[in-house]
């Protein structure tokens, strides 16, 4: 999974260097199961000066509020209770609505190489509308979480993984 997804990181690093002549200060990606994020992070994981920020749905923050547990064959940080029973996750975006996460993200969190922050449904919706209005790009609701937290950053050059398009999410967005 990581080796396939890291094409995102390798190509964006190469393209950014060609366009800007420097590395980004921060790389931001949404994290559900974590595949797009691990892919873009791996292009930059050895660039110690590049901050890696993963953005979880606030109601499905397995890294932010989870505990060590085993789900779907992996030991990772999982939304679970004291007995190890898996808790319900909630997110407006289907792709982030998952109580577990790829274990390498838990390792990146624990080593401090990456940080993980939450984003609410409302914040993601605001970011969705803002990108649509200002750039004419309809982002996936998943990616909108990354956009929302990217807006908070005090940095000049930020790379956001726009991991999907939002056509699929229009019914959901219009219902809010």
């Amino acid at each position, binding site marked *: 999974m990581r080796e396939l997804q890291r094409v995102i990181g390798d190509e964006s690093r190469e393209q950014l260097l060609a366009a800007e002549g420097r590395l980004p200060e921060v790389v931001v990606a949404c994290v559900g199961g974590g595949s797009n994020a691990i892919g873009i992070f791996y292009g930059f994981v050895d660039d110690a000066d590049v901050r890696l920020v993963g953005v979880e749905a606030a109601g499905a923050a397995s890294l932010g509020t989870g505990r060590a*547990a085993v789900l779907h*064959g992996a030991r990772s940080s999982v939304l679970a209770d004291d007995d190890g029973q*898996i808790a319900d996750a909630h997110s407006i975006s289907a792709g982030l609505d998952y109580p577990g996460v790829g274990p390498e993200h838990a390792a990146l969190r624990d080593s401090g190489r990456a940080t993980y922050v939450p984003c609410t449904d409302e914040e993601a919706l605001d970011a969705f509308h803002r990108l649509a209005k200002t750039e004419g790009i309809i982002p996936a609701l998943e990616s909108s979480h990354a956009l929302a937290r990217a807006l908070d950053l005090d940095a000049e050059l930020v790379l956001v993984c726009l991991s999907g398009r939002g056509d699929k999410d229009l019914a959901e967005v219009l219902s809010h």
Partner: protein
Amino acid sequence: MSSATAAKSLVIYLVCEPETPELAEAAVEGGADIVELGIPFSDPLAEGPTIRLASERALARGMRTKQCLECIAAVRERVDVPLVPMTYAAILEAYGYERFVEDSRAAGATSAIVVDLPVEEHRDVARIQLVAPTSTDERISVCAEHTDGWLYLVSLTGTTGARDEVSPALAGLVERARALTGVPLYAGFGISTPAHAASVAELADGVVVGSRAVQVAVEGPDALREYVAGLRAAIDAAVPA
């Protein structure tokens, strides 16, 4: 025919619920040699619809790890056969692996089955290993070497649940496993009728029946006793002790 002299073992699976001690006793009276006692998990990835529903029901009734260990102890007061807790790694991860072994043994359990705990992990937890038609010869050998008592042959590539026919993949799996190990081979997944049980007994050393037993158990101990007796009779007729 008494189960003690039977050539082939019959294993019956039940989910830990308040009625389970009485049901397990009925299963043993019907001829079960071993009872697997499922500790329900919210995300039981090896289970089909019947055991998933039963697990959800048990959890809704408060059957958490502690209550399940109490259930095992209550079953132990009624029967003498081996009782094997069957569950998922998340339960032991939360409870503590060593603590689970100690407390389940104290409750009267024999061994364990931890469906999603690979053979390499937590070897201090003595347990029955599972292999499937997709397991390589190398994997079957490693699992057989570390298994506790018998090797669980998952007869098909899929989840638990009654099927119309015994999996055509089972015969080949038994043949491969026999060539690799001398440990007893018990087959499960998709075995529900006396005819299935009889044909599996001709191949393997033991027959594990889960989903259909869980379905019949809803009708009460008498229905379960009769159902298990039917399996027992078919097995013993096919392969006399």
